[in-house]
């Protein structure tokens, strides 16, 4: 009996979510949500689909949540849709997302809005193991990946050491970036310009120069891999995790840490203040930080665990190990990013994409 | 004067299907010829080959002694009137008529006058600025004729000119076309499946069947002297009675002996053709030249005529007689036993290979 009830609830949810995606912005209160989801054994995790969602199910939902009697329902979509939902629902007494997977900058934007529940080791014990420089009062860091210089191991004899190299005539028409990663591309440019990750003016100037050097743009991260293989481009800026996974799929690329510093891509988990099932959400985040879950993600996606007790070993540990001497790693200044995000997006579209 | 159009051995086949099979006929200047036959007999294909819409598979078409087979339609100078009229719906009546003039390079200044002349000819001068869809069927047809005539074509081709008209209009229009054609000495070829239309409009008929010519001749020729049982049946709706000539003057028709009016040398299977209106009925056993007797199976009063059906063994004879007037004969009731007779000139006997047999006395 109970099983049947659960299943039908699970099925009913997606359509309600679809409706909500639109209605949330209409500021139409999600009254039916509260009534229908009174039972506390369901947890809605808003996340990316594909490998990411599957790994969550395999490493968190099944081994940790199921034994607790918590049924996890994934609300799959892009990050911006997720942000819009939380943002639009934040004034309501109860939203319909319990846990959201977001990147560092987005977590900061939501925190600034006061939309997030504080997280600490008292409520999420495993946060005691989180890397302190990645930890914020409202976001639990899940893993990170440094943004590195990527280059073709076949065609580049002298590995690049800095963003500056990409501006050289040797790389004319041979540098490619992922268009969707423009905030991080700009951080790399800022670090090159002045060593200050918030130096927007310097970053803009450097990026314009890179653009003039025949910069190529690709719509998505996945679309940036084939041109390395086909010889269309020789170098670019990419997250280390992706370089590793491309290497695993036979694309001849290598990573180099820029001497001016590598911005860190951080993937976090947050809990909206009005999450309907907050207790389960905290348990979920704690489970995510368990070593076994961290290892599962690291092995499949090539990201570096954001905890100090993940205990990686073997080839994986070697692949993810940082070079010696330790490179300069820079945590993005999320507050600065959040303030200028819309302007930066516009600037990127009008200045970099257009010319 | 030499012939205007000479069609010789004209053939058309689609794959193995022979649509037109070695047709030969002439059209004299100022003459209207009707190609007549049931649907699928190849008459329309013949017209379309003359117009140039369909390429001939063999034979030749001479216009004033010169072959036109190699010429495309637009250089043949034929005036074509289509069954559907095919008026240009986006052009006014005047522009429809002027179209051919323009195509023939008539200067713009002369066109209007010529358009009006030809519209007067078909009594539509007041309709010049109308669009085709604003006209009745009869008016549309007159526009189609005017359009075809405007360029003074060497030959006027009419495809089923009356079939899209109301039955009540047909005889009037047929007469109008005929008068127009005669008064202007137009050389014309029409196609029809309706023998009365062909009779009313043409100088000579070409009766066709299955891609071949059955008979060419005047109305009287094909009516009075059909060359084949098919022509006798198609033109005069003749009764066709199958039988065997057992002696010179007797037709054995499934056991019923018919005393023929003529004497024939042939023996064996023949077809006797008798026109319904040329048969006389008398009370059985009273007439001296009673050729056979039979019972009235059905009698129908049709206004001007009475149609009676007499059973002769396996065959039935349709007899049509005037219902009143000096030629009216006595009417019989169903079941009456009647004597059937006809004159020698009204009797037509065809051999087994469909050739007419000559009758002796």
């Amino acid at each position, binding site marked *: 009996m109970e099983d049947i009830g659960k299943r039908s609830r699970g099925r009913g949810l997606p359509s309600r979510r679809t409706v909500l995606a639109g209605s949330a*912005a209409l500021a139409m209160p999600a009254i039916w949500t509260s009534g229908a989801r009174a039972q506390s054994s369901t947890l809605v995790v808003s996340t990316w689909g594909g490998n990411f969602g599957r790994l969550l199910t395999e490493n968190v939902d099944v081994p940790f949540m199921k034994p607790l009697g918590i049924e996890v329902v994934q609300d799959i979509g*892009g990050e*911006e*849709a997720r*942000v*819009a939902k939380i*943002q*639009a629902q934040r004034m309501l007494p109860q939203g319909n997302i319990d846990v959201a997977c977001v990147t560092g900058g987005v977590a900061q934007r939501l925190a*600034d*809005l006061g939309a997030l529940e504080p997280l600490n080791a008292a409520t999420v014990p495993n946060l005691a193991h989180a890397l302190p420089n990645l930890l914020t009062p409202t976001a639990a860091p899940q893993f990170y990946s440094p943004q590195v210089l990527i280059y073709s191991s076949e065609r580049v004899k002298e590995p690049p050491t800095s963003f500056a190299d990409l501006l050289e005539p040797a790389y004319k028409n041979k540098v490619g970036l992922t*268009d969707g990663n423009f905030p991080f591309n700009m951080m790399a440019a800022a670090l090159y310009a002045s060593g200050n990750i918030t130096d927007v003016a310097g970053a803009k100037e450097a990026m314009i120069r890179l653009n003039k050097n025949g910069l190529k*743009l*690709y*719509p998505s991260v996945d679309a940036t891999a*084939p*041109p390395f*293989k*086909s*010889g*269309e481009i020789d170098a670019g800026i990419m997250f280390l995790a992706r370089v590793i996974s491309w290497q695993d799929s036979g694309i001849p690329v290598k990573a180099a840490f820029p001497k001016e510093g590598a911005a860190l891509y951080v993937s976090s988990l947050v809990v909206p203040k009005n999450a309907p099932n907050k207790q389960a959400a905290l348990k979920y985040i704690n489970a995510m930080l368990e070593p076994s879950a961290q290892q599962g993600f690291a092995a499949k996606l090539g990201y570096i665990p954001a905890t100090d007790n993940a205990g990686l070993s073997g080839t994986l540990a070697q692949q993810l190990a940082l070079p010696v001497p330790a490179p300069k790693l820079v945590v993005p200044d999320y507050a600065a990013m959040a303030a200028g*995000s*819309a302007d930066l*997006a*516009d600037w990127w*579209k*009008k200045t970099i*994409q*257009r010319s | 004067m030499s012939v205007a159009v000479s069609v010789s051995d004209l053939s058309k086949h689609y794959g193995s299907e022979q649509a037109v099979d070695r047709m030969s006929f002439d059209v004299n200047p100022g003459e209207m010829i009707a190609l007549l036959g049931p649907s699928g007999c190849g008459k329309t294909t013949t017209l379309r080959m003359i*117009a*140039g*819409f369909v390429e001939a598979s063999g034979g030749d078409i001479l216009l004033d002694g010169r072959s036109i087979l190699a010429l*495309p*339609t*637009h*250089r043949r*100078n*034929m*005036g*074509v009137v*289509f069954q*559907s009229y*095919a*008026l*240009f*719906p*986006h052009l006014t009546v005047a522009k429809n008529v002027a*179209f*051919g003039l323009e*195509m*023939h390079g008539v200067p713009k200044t002369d066109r209007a006058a010529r358009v009006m002349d030809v519209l007067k000819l078909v009594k539509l001068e007041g309709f010049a600025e109308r669009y085709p869809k604003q006209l009745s069927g009869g008016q549309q047809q007159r526009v189609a004729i005017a*359009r*075809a005539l405007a*360029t003074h074509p060497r030959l006027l*081709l009419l495809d089923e000119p009356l079939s899209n008209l109301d039955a009540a209009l047909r005889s009037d229009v047929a007469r109008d076309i005929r008068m127009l054609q005669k008064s202007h000495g137009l050389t014309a070829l029409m196609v029809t499946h309706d023998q009365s239309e062909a009779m009313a409009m043409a100088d000579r008929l070409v009766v066709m069947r299955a891609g071949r010519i059955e008979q060419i001749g005047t109305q009287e020729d094909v009516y009075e002297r059909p060359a084949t049982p098919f022509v006798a049946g198609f033109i005069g709706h003749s009764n066709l009675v199958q039988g065997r000539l057992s002696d010179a003057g007797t037709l054995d028709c499934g056991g019923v002996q018919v005393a023929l009016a003529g004497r024939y040398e042939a023996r064996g299977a023949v077809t006797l053709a008798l026109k319904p209106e040329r048969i006389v009925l008398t009370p059985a056993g009273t007439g001296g030249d009673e050729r056979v007797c039979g019972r009235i199976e059905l009698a129908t009063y049709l206004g001007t005529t009475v149609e009676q059906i007499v059973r002769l063994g396996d065959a039935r004879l349709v007899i049509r007689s005037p219902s009143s007037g000096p030629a009216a004969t006595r009417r019989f009731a169903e079941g009456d036993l009647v004597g059937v007779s006809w004159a020698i000139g009204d009797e037509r006997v065809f051999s087994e290979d469909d050739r007419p047999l000559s009758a002796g006395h």
Partner: protein
Amino acid sequence: MSDAIISGRRSRQLGGTVLLAPATLVVLIMLAAPLALLVRYSFNRFSPTDLMIAAVTPENYVRFFTDPFYLEVMRTTIGVALLSTVLCLILGLPIGWRLSRMRPPWRGIFIFAMIMPLFVSSTVRALGWMILFARGGVLDLGSSYFFQRHFEMQFSSTGVVIGIVSANLPYMVLMAQSVFAGIDDRLSEAARGLGAAPVRAFWRVIWPLAIPGIAIATIMCLILGMNAYATPILLGGPRFQMMAPLVYWEFGTNNNWPFASALAFVLMATTLLLAVVAHTLVPRRYRA
């Protein structure tokens, strides 16, 4: 007696109206309401924290019409739509004409062949072109082998136009086919009988009669071109901008619903305007 019949008929008509009402209502709600919302949103104000603030301000429209960037994107969009429509006409009309004059078995087969691509979404077809145009793709390999130079079609406006033409051509061909098939062959024969060479007969008789239908097909291609989304994104790449992807960018990436609504409304209005202009270019007597 007759009163009863009349009232019976009237009540039947009334019944029909009542039966149609729910469907009409649904159409109204599904079509008109979102449109009304769109217009309403476009006058709202955007805030990075609150997303959308109820207001009545023209600022979103002012932003569009005063920023050369957006006007340029609109120009590109109109240019691509017009060019792809002209190409669809040039390629589609002869094919449609030929199809309409084919004999029965072949006509059906070729029409089916034209419909076939429509079974595949335009996104998948654009992906096909992407693979074809890509560095290391068939065209690039051929070009590299024969001309010792790379084939540069990926992420180009030419590629986008090719993609849109390939997506819209079947519609043009099918509509042209049915327009031409609806014109009696006898009309062309009549024109030829009156001394018009076949080409002249086509332009003087068939073409004027086809214009209303062709105009509708043209307007449809124009609308599809103006609103193309997947093709410009996939074949144009990040540097190529058209209106529909821009609307989505403002809506989805920037979460700026008011401006996205204004962009969408401007796009819609421009498309409508182009359709009206295209319609008025057709001489009055040829209009459907």
